[in-house]
């Protein structure tokens, strides 16, 4: 039986990890719930952002957080371009399925190019404060993990407010559901859909940088992320941002706690067990997602 201090330590780690999962899953939810696009390449972009942060740091020594100034707009533009140049050209009838394949191909391409540019070696940013930490009620919290969590929380909050309470959010949803009708209401659908996608990728930029602060990266790492993230959005109910956030926190915490008793590998299966359980017993997901069966 693990000691209470270890359990508490695990919970703290679980929360910190869950925060990052939540941000990333929120991006996926955005494409998925709102735009009907299964964005397999999300985690590839995540790794790309991490690589950019790492590269900038290695070359110039600037703090990875500063690279956000460049990567967020860059990813936003890339997202707009991807939506405008690629995704709009898919047949609406088969959008969901074909977008899986298209974004899959983007993921492969990114992985290949990263491997080409930086080789398959694992990389890690060397920060002055990477091994710093402080005590919190008997648990130790690494500074980098806390920073990553803070970034994730801020980005997530911003995303939520934007989607729920702005004209943009509404226009975006309208655009995706009935493009012609939205146009007729005066919505610039091309621009809005592009922005929506850009926004999703921008979250990948934030997430990737947060990720790069404290873990190793390598080109094929994105496969390692896409599984848990996909599981999270299904458990959370496709299309529900709060659902995804709650599922991310819960599963992140569970994973962390399970690691006390099981090996890390077995602990990771919690995501998939949750996924299969959800589909077998409650296909619409556990939180929200009323129209999930339509996907």
């Amino acid at each position, binding site marked *: 039986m693990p000691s209470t201090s270890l359990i508490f330590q695990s919970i703290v780690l679980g929360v910190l990890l869950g925060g990052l999962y939540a941000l990333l899953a929120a991006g996926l939810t955005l494409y998925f719930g709102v735009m009907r696009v299964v964005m397999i390449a999300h985690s590839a972009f995540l790794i790309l952002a991490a690589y950019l942060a790492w590269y900038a740091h290695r070359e110039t020594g600037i703090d990875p957080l500063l690279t956000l100034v460049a990567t967020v707009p860059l990813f936003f533009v890339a997202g707009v371009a991807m939506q405008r140049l690629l995704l709009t050209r898919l047949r609406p009838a088969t959008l969901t399925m074909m977008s899986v394949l298209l974004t899959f*191909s983007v993921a*492969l391409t990114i992985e290949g190019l990263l491997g080409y540019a930086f080789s398959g070696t694992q990389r890690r940013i060397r920060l002055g404060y990477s091994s710093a930490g402080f005590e919190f009620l008997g648990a130790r919290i690494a500074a980098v993990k806390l920073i990553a969590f803070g970034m994730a929380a801020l980005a997530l909050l911003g995303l939520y407010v934007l989607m729920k309470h702005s004209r943009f959010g509404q226009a975006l949803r309208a655009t995706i559901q009935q493009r*012609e009708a939205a146009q007729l209401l005066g919505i610039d659908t091309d621009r809005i859909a592009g922005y929506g996608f850009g926004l999703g990728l921008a979250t990948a930029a934030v997430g990737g940088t947060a990720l790069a602060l404290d873990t190793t990266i390598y080109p094929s790492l994105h496969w390692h992320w896409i*599984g848990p993230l996909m599981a999270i959005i299904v458990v959370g109910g*496709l299309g529900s941002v709060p659902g995804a956030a709650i599922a991310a926190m819960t599963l992140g915490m569970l994973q962390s706690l399970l690691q006390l008793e099981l090996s890390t590998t077995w602990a990771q299966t919690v995501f*998939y067990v949750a996924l299969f359980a959800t589909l077998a017993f409650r296909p619409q997901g556990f939180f929200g997602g009323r129209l999930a069966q339509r*996907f």
Partner: protein
Amino acid sequence: MRKGSELPLRAGRLRTSTLLHVGALLAGVAVALSFPSMAPSPYEITVGIAILNYAVLSTSWNFVGGFTGYISLGHGAFAGLGAYGTGLLVTKAELPPFAALFVAAALVAALAVPVGYAALRVRGASFVIVSIALVLILLLVFQSWASFTGGSRGLVVPRPFPGMLRSEHHRTFYFLFAALLGVALLTWWIIDRSRFGMGLKAIREDEDKAQSLGTPIFAYKLVVFVVSATFTSLAGGLYALWFGDLDPVFQFSILSGAYMVLMALLGGVRHLYGPLLGALIVGYALEYSKVEYGDTPLHLVVAGLLLGVVVMFMPDGVIPAATALLARFRTSGETSIREVTAAELKERHGQGNGTDESEVRNSERSGSGG
């Protein structure tokens, strides 16, 4: 094809085209079967086996992907299960190799039932996610459960024909793979022209509608999913017997599932030979890119771009694209049949049908955009 046969006008042309078809088929089979004896070294045979393996895998994938339109990115899981199942049955249960192959396939089929049950209840995106999850979870399990599966140390499957020369071993397996491909293609063909196949295609188009016409959609989907899993696992098991070394990382890889999709889609998922053609192209392209860009990860980029191009520009595959191109060169016989009939019809019905021709001619332009 079939629809053409009902038109008396085209009966003559049809008979020659059937002959051509059968001739081409026989020629293809002959070339395929004589390949091992023409190959300059065992190495070429192994390349042939690899391509045949791809062809079996993508044809197997196409049972689900082609008929029902459900895209599974995780079919590699079934190949991996077939391979490991065969290997474990040989090493742990000491079954004879080929008995192990079929027992493993039966086990995978049994496993495909609950998996299909969870995955096929949900449509579209969720299915893809489940399929991806399946590979990833199996990778974790086979890596972690080292005491049983050998974990990342891998599993060595003993040779089915001990003492056989290596080149002879390759030759034998070449024919075994070819036979498996033949059976898979035959099964696909039988389903394709059957009422069962028609029901599956209806499911691909509109599930509710198919159901309201009396198609038991869930049972149909499940059956074809299990058939697909079984063939995939046979391919995996045969591979295990041929290759001998299994490693979870390579057996349960998303990439292998992606290649199946790519090959099937490239060739054309609605066609019997689509996946086979795709396997030839992709298998060759992989070999080529390895030779040309051997020391870079650009083969991923090649695969990625190829998939992207296929999805964007020929979502129906090479075969339909080529057929369409051919049709353009032919006389406009086909369209005129329709128009003549339409004109006759106008006469018969007198009114109300004045617009038929234009309706037939227009097709794909999507209504949006300014």
